[in-house]
C-alpha cells in the first residue's frame, strides 16, 4: 500500500491522531500549532482527493480491510471531496485567522481541550462526508455535534451556555431522528452500507417502514441543517460563540447536514420509493421558500451584526434546499455550488465581523458608524462578501444563483414562480447588507463613543482577504467548483457522466 492509497483515510486520521496529542501535551502555544498543522495537512489531502475525483472517479477505501457490506468503507466521490475541501479549508482558515483572537477568548489553561475539540469537530464533519456507511455517519455526527457544543461555549460570554443548551436539545433530537430512521432501514434491509442500502431498499416489498425511515431521516437532518422552522437553535449559537468558531461553523457545519440529506435521499430513497421526487419537492420547497423570506425579514430587523448574518444563513440555506428539491442536474449543481460558495462568502464575512468586533468591542450595527473610514480594508472585505450574498455578477453568489435560476426555468410555471422568489429574496438581501454598509460608511459616530482609528491587525486581515479573493477567483474560474458539482449531481441522479 502506497501513501497515495492511504489518502482517503488520512484526511480524517490525521485529525483524530492529533487530537489526543493536542490534549495531552500542555506546552505554551503548542495546541494551536498542532491543531493548525493537522488541519492544514488534512486540507492538502482533501485537495488531492478532489483532484483525483474530478474525473468522475469514485474512491472506495475499506476500513480494517473488510469488504463493503461487512466492514465500513469510505466512499469518496466528487461531492464528498468538494465538501471535505470546504470543511478542512474553512477550518484551517478560521484557525489561522483566529490565532490571536482565540488566544484571548479561550485562555491558556483551557486551550488544549479547546483545540482538541476543534480538531475533533473538523474530524467529525469530514468523517460524515467521506464515509459510505449510514451508521458511521451517525457516529461522526455525534463527534461533530458534541465538539461544536464545546467550541460554542468556550468563549467568555456566558449567554453562550444557554444557546449551547438549546443547540444540544435540538441537535440531540435531530441526531436521534436520524438514528431511528437508520434503525428502520437496517430492519428492512439488514445492511448499513449506503451503496448496499441503495440496492436493497429497492427490493423491499412493503415500503411502509422505508417511508417512515425517510421521514425520520429527512426531518432529523433538517433540524441539524437549520432549515427554516427548525432553525431556532442557530442564530444565538452563532452570535455568542467565539468569533473564529463562528467563522468555522457558519462556513461548514450546517452544510454537512444538508450534504447528508442530499446523499441519503438521492442515493437511497430516490430510486426505491415511487414518486419520491414529488415527496421531496413537497417537503423542501415550502420550507425553502419560507426560509428565504423569513430569514431575510428577520435579518432586516436585526440589530446585532452576527445574528444578522446568522439569519441571512437561514435564508441562504433556503436556496440550497430549493436546489436540492428540484431533482434535476442543474438544480443539484446549483445547490452544491451554493453550499461551497456560501461557505466561502459567510466565512469571509464573519471574519470581517470578527475584525470589527476586535476594535469596536461590539457588533451592534448602530455602534459601527465610521467603520468605513477607520477600517477600510475590513469593511471592503465585508462589502465584497455582502455583494456575494446578494448575488452580484463577478461574486461567487452570482454563480450559484445563476445555476439555481437556470434549473428553476426548466420546471415550468412553478419554476417561474421560484425565479421570482429568488429575485425578491435577493432584493431583501440588498436591504440587510445595505443596512450595515450604510451605518459603516455614512453614519455619524456617536459623540460618546471611543473613536476607533486603527485597522485590524494584519494576522487577521490577510486571512480575511485570502478568503475573499478565493471567492472571487472561484467566481471567475468556475471549473473546479462547478466541475466537481456537476459531476456530483450527475452521480447522485445516476445520469451518465
Amino acid at each position, binding site marked *: 500500500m502506497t501513501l497515495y492509497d492511504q489518502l482517503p483515510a488520512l484526511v480524517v486520521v490525521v485529525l483524530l491522531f492529533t487530537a489526543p496529542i493536542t490534549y495531552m501535551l500542555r506546552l505554551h502555544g503548542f495546541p494551536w500549532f498542532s491543531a493548525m498543522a493537522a488541519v492544514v495537512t488534512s486540507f492538502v489531502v482533501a485537495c488531492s482527493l478532489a483532484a483525483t475525483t474530478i474525473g468522475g472517479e469514485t474512491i472506495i477505501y475499506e476500513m480494517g480491510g473488510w469488504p463493503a457490506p461487512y466492514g465500513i468503507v469510505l466512499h469518496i466521490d466528487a461531492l464528498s471531496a468538494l465538501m471535505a475541501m470546504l470543511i478542512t479549508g474553512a477550518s484551517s482558515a478560521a484557525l489561522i485567522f483566529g490565532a490571536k483572537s482565540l488566544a484571548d477568548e479561550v485562555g491558556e489553561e483551557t486551550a488544549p481541550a479547546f483545540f482538541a475539540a476543534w480538531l475533533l469537530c473538523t474530524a467529525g464533519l469530514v468523517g460524515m462526508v467521506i464515509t459510505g456507511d449510514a451508521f458511521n455517519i451517525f457516529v461522526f455526527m455525534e463527534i461533530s455535534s458534541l465538539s461544536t457544543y464545546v467550541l460554542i461555549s468556550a468563549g467568555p460570554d456566558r449567554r453562550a451556555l444557554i444557546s449551547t443548551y438549546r443547540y444540544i436539545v435540538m441537535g440531540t433530537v435531530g441526531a436521534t431522528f436520524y438514528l431511528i430512521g437508520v434503525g428502520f432501514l437496517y430492519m428492512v434491509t439488514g445492511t448499513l452500507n449506503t451503496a448496499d442500502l441503495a440496492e436493497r431498499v429497492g427490493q423491499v416489498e412493503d415500503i411502509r417502514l422505508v417511508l417512515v425511515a425517510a421521514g425520520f431521516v429527512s426531518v432529523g437532518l433538517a433540524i441539524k441543517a437549520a432549515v427554516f422552522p427548525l432553525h431556532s437553535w442557530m442564530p444565538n449559537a452563532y452570535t455568542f460563540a467565539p468569533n473564529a468558531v463562528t467563522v468555522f461553523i457558519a462556513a461548514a457545519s450546517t452544510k454537512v447536514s444538508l450534504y447528508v440529506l442530499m446523499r441519503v435521499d438521492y442515493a437511497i430513497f430516490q430510486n426505491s420509493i415511487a414518486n419520491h421526487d414529488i415527496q421531496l419537492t413537497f417537503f423542501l420547497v415550502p420550507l425553502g421558500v419560507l426560509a428565504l423570506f423569513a430569514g431575510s425579514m*428577520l435579518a432586516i*430587523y436585526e440589530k446585532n451584526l452576527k445574528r444578522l448574518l446568522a439569519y441571512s444563513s437561514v435564508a441562504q440555506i433556503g436556496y440550497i434546499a430549493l436546489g436540492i428539491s428540484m431533482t434535476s442536474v442543474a438544480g443539484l449543481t446549483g445547490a452544491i455550488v451554493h453550499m461551497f460558495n456560501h461557505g466561502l462568502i459567510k466565512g469571509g464575512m464573519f471574519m470581517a465581523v470578527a475584525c470589527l468586533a476586535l476594535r469596536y468591542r461590539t457588533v451592534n450595527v448602530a455602534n459601527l458608524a465610521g467603520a468605513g473610514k477607520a477600517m477600510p480594508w475590513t469593511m471592503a472585505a465585508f462589502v465584497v462578501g455582502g455583494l456575494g450574498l446578494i448575488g452580484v455578477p463577478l461574486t461567487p453568489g452570482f454563480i450559484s444563483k445563476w445555476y439555481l435560476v437556470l434549473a428553476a426555468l426548466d420546471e415550468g410555471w412553478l419554476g417561474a414562480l421560484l425565479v421570482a422568489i429568488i429575485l425578491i429574496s435577493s432584493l431583501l438581501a440588498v436591504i440587510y447588507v445595505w443596512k450595515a454598509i450604510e451605518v459603516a460608511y455614512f453614519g455619524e459616530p456617536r459623540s460618546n463613543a471611543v473613536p476607533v482609528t486603527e485597522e485590524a491587525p494584519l494576522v487577521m486581515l490577510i486571512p480575511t482577504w485570502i478568503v475573499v479573493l478565493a471567492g472571487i477567483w472561484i467566481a471567475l474560474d468556475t471549473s473546479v467548483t462547478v466541475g466537481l458539482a456537476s459531476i456530483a449531481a450527475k452521480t447522485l441522479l445516476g445520469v451518465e457522466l
Partner: protein
Amino acid sequence: MDLLLDIASAILLLTGGFFVFVGGFGVMRMPEFFTRMHAASLTDTGGAALILLGLMLQGGLTLVPFKLAAIFLFLFLTSPTASYALANAALLSGVSTACRNETGAPLPENEVDSADSKPASKSVAKTSASRTSGRKTTAKQAAEQAAPKAAARKASKKAAKKPAGKAAKKPARKAAKKAAGKPAGKKS
C-alpha cells in the same frame, strides 16, 4: 440422586420466591418507612439466599456454583450495608416515624413523633459524635429542622396544587406566550 437434588432445589427456589414476594408485599403494605425497610431488607437477604442456594444445587461441578456463591457473598455484604446507609440517610433528614393507620392516613402526630424519632436520632448523633466533632448538632438539627419543613412543604404543595395551581398557570402561560410571540430579532 438427581431427583433428590431437583426436589431440594425446587423447594429452596419456591420458598425463596415466596419470601421475596412476601418482602414485596410488606413493602407495599407496611404503614411507614422504617417498617417497610424492615420488610424489604429482611426478605432481601433471606429470599436471595434461598434462591441462590437453590440455583447452586443445579449448577453441577462447573464454575457456575462459584459465581453464584460470589453473588451470594456480595449480596450478603452489600444488601445490609445499603439498608444501613438508607436508614441512616432517612434519620439524618428526619423522616417521621409516625405510624399510619389501616387506611393509610397518618395517625395523630403528637406523641408518636417526639417519642420515637428523637431518641433515635440522638443515639446516632452520639455514636458518631465520639469520632468527629460537630456531628452532634448536625444530625439533631437536621432531624428537627427537616421534619416540620418537609411536612409544611407537603401541605403547602397539596394546597397549592388544586386551586392555586390552575389559577397561577393561566397568567403564566399568557406571559410566556407574549414573550415568545415577539419577533426574536427585537430582543437584542
